[in-house]
């Protein structure tokens, strides 16, 4: 059995969390709140040290002390000032000022993200679906079947999400086939989710039996 106080604390907190499986209780609530508190606190401190200090505080300080040119002070002050406008939300009279940083963030975010998202998730995916048909002569029978299945799956699934036409007749049939492809996709996601969740349990059991109790090596 471990003699490390840290291992004992971790084991206690693990058991506190597992106790929820029986029913909700104060031990579980304590561990849950501790976890949330520590995570948020850690995130804030890290963001101050890895973000605010190197990108805001240090450049401003260096400009004032003469280690950096004065123009850098003003160049840094603009984004810092815009960032501070987020706190205007705390003062109802000036809360409208928050629109500016939000507008900048949304504008920049959309500008960066939309072209790349189109390229990454639409054009490249369309290309990937159709590309095998351009080299079909060099594909094996299995690869051809795979490419055709992929195309049928994409068309049928997209048809299911096309709501401007009533899903009757041929369209209804295609969209029903789309549901089957969707269900296969959900089944795969469910299997992988089970694997993910069980992995967490395995790691904790391994910790309790190995690191804490010393039963397994």
């Amino acid at each position: 059995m471990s003699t490390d106080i840290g291992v004992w604390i971790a084991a206690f907190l693990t058991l506190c969390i597992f106790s929820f499986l029986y029913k909700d209780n104060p031990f579980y609530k304590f561990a849950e709140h501790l976890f949330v508190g520590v995570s948020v606190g850690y995130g804030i401190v890290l963001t101050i040290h890895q973000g605010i200090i190197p990108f805001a505080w240090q450049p401003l300080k260096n400009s004032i002390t003469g280690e950096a040119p004065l123009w850098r002070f003003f160049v840094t002050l603009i984004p810092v000032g815009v960032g501070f406008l987020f706190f205007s939300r705390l003062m109802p009279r000036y809360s409208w000022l928050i629109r500016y940083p939000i507008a900048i963030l949304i504008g920049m975010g959309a500008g960066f993200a939309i072209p790349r998202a189109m390229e990454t998730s639409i054009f490249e995916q369309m290309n990937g679906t159709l590309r095998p048909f351009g080299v079909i002569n060099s594909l094996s029978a299995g690869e051809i079947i795979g490419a055709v299945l992929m195309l049928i799956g994409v068309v049928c699934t997209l048809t299911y999400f096309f709501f401007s036409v009533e899903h009757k007749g041929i369209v209804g049939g295609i969209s029903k086939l789309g549901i089957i492809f969707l269900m296969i996709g959900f089944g795969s996601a469910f299997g992988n989710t089970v694997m993910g969740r069980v992995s967490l349990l395995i790691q904790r059991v391994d910790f309790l039996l190995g690191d804490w109790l010393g039963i397994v090596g």
Partner: protein
Amino acid sequence: MIEKLMSLDRRYVFALVGLAVIIPTLLMIRFPIYVSQPTQNIYDFIEGLSEGEVVMIAFDYGPSSLAELNPMAIAVLRHCFRKRLRVIGMTLWPVGATLGDTLMREVAHEFDTTEGEDYVYLGYRPGVTNVLLQMGEDISAVFAEDYSGTPISEHPMMADVKNYNDIALVVDLAAGASVEGAWIPYTYTGYKQKIAAGVTGVIVSQLYPYLQTGQLVGLMPGLLGAAEYEKLIEQPGKGTAGMSAQSIVHLLVIVLVIVGNVAYFTTRRREQNAEVY
């Protein structure tokens, strides 16, 4: 019997799952592991790199996903250090910062490596998009210092690493949407940087399309991916150890799904018959 099954206390299911994990762990049962092509692709890519080439590993996960992604990270790091590749570590997740640092140092100490020459851990910077785009131009502009505060200009290995052009492969170990939401759109699409991913089981299904299009070099799925990579580097670890319990729990879940469905449909038929009469 069927009625009892339908009203079975879920705590019995929890207990069964618990036993399905504890018993194989205690008995140290081992099932064979077969390597899938997407994991093999990552191994082959790294295996094909020459000594001194640079691999960047992004530890984009926190403690809640450590069970799946730490074994993966250890296996990939061992492979890189064994191949004498230079490794840069970083994260887009604040909670992954210390975790990545600790892990990288632990694995680096298993080999004859020197910090600054064979590996550097840059840590975390806020602002995902800005960080990825800036690294495409100049890594030192966003990471002027490494995680421990040493200027990266003082690390010899960073002398000839300016941006993605000098990095052979990025391996993103991810628990969230950082692969398809950040690395692929900004780093692959923007700079044609080769990217491989190791992700949690929960999100792996949505990444297979990126594998098929070639936007990802390879993909490691959860604990299974870790076990596969451990097999490839011939160094079993936590991934391999966990896969037997994993297989038994999957069998149990399949049985429970079948039993649950049989019980549900039998009960429904009985109720329908009762309504008719």
